[in-house]
């Protein structure tokens, strides 16, 4: 599929941003790049990107972060599903409204991950708020960058 030739490199970029070293203080609000990229592609190409893309990328994120296999796969596929349900409405929103929805979506993604992790292991790190804030803040920029990439390569 030609579309994946554009989608997968943007995910590579997202994985890179998710693992690159930054000052310790910035780590606390590090945006969830992979979740945002997934949200973008499901938003603009729901017929190509969907639950299974979320599942696959979640699996790779699990390997990257060394968490139990399937944890991010579960939470990212749920997020992809939610975006599919919302996508026709989300497109009409202005950037500010979109940012708010992204805040809620990323927050939900982190919450599902937190629930699953604490059910499995009895303990989990509950950093829910700040990564969602970071994602919402960077969303307009990331959205436009990905939109530019998408239109430049005309998938």
């Amino acid at each position, binding site marked *: 599929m030609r579309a994946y030739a554009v989608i997968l490199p943007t995910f590579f970029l997202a994985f890179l941003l998710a693992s690159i070293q930054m000052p310790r203080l910035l780590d606390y609000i590090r945006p969830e790049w992979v979740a945002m990229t997934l949200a973008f592609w499901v938003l603009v190409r729901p017929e190509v990107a969907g*639950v299974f893309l979320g599942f696959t990328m979640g699996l*790779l994120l699990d*390997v990257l972060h*060394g968490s*139990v296999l*399937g944890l991010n796969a579960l939470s990212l*596929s749920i997020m992809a599903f939610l975006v599919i349900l919302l996508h026709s409405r989300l*497109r009409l929103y202005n950037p500010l409204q979109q940012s708010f929805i992204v805040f809620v979506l990323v927050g939900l993604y982190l919450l599902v991950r937190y629930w699953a992790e604490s059910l499995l292991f009895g303990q989990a790190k509950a*950093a829910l708020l700040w990564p969602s804030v970071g994602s919402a803040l960077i969303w307009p920029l990331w959205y436009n960058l990905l939109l530019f990439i998408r239109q430049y390569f005309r998938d």
Partner: protein
Amino acid sequence: MRIAQRHKINFNKSKEPIIKGIFSSGQSNNSRMVMALILSIGLMLADKYFEPMQHVRSTLGYLITPVQWVAGVPGQLGVWAESSAVSRASLQEENDRLRNESLVLKQKVQQMVSLRAENNRLRELLNASELLDDKVQVAELIGVDPDPYTHHIIINKGEQHGVFVGQPILDAQGLMGQVIEVLPYTARVLLLADSNHAIPVLVNRNGIRAIAVGSGRLDELALIYVPDTADIQEGDLLVSSGLGSRYPRGYPVGTITKVAHDPGEPFAIVSAKPQAQLDRSRYVLLVFSRESKLPEVVTKEGGDL
């Protein structure tokens, strides 16, 4: 108006899928979601309870390794720039210093040989097993886990180089941690200072045993269950005791920085500073020791020890 313009292209392009979505893909989305749910929950349980899932992880690791390599590039560029832009004078200075250091170390090694032989003879007299040298391999740090609540590092040696889960990692000063996950070309190391980590130690001065757990801060370890009467002082060196058959015995772990007695607490409050430079070391040593690889053998030979 502006928003409508912005999304004009999207409207046109998406008209078809939306209509299709009403009739067909809505249903299949639900079933896809159910499949993904079952798959991922199954995976999580399998990964938690079945050892062979490590192979699945390391296969997926082939895909993720390029990300780890590229993410490490900025750091390596920095090191390269630093090392290639040094003046001749400072290089010469460093060279002299290293030559002196090597001379001193060589002298110590000369003594070591005879001391080791003597030690082994004495141990033979005591019927204890002979001490062997540990094999080591140098690895380079290529990444630090971005999660601020854990202390993991990524090194550039993996399954292909013989790294295994549980392998101890050292730097020039002391123990750093252990390997917790092996991918084909990289491995993840849990540092001593992580709050999920504990290591059995003993005080070098008098052999008192204790357990050093990570505090979550890179410069502090805490000794737990130390009785108030134990003879532990500030400045004591802690070395790994080899109990637990994971870390080899005798490597420096930390120095005691604080000993406090609180009448309200059942145990003394003892903290130590890790000997290894957990936040600085770029090159680390992988130890291939027999103790850390074969816990079964140790339990079989339990009588001898």
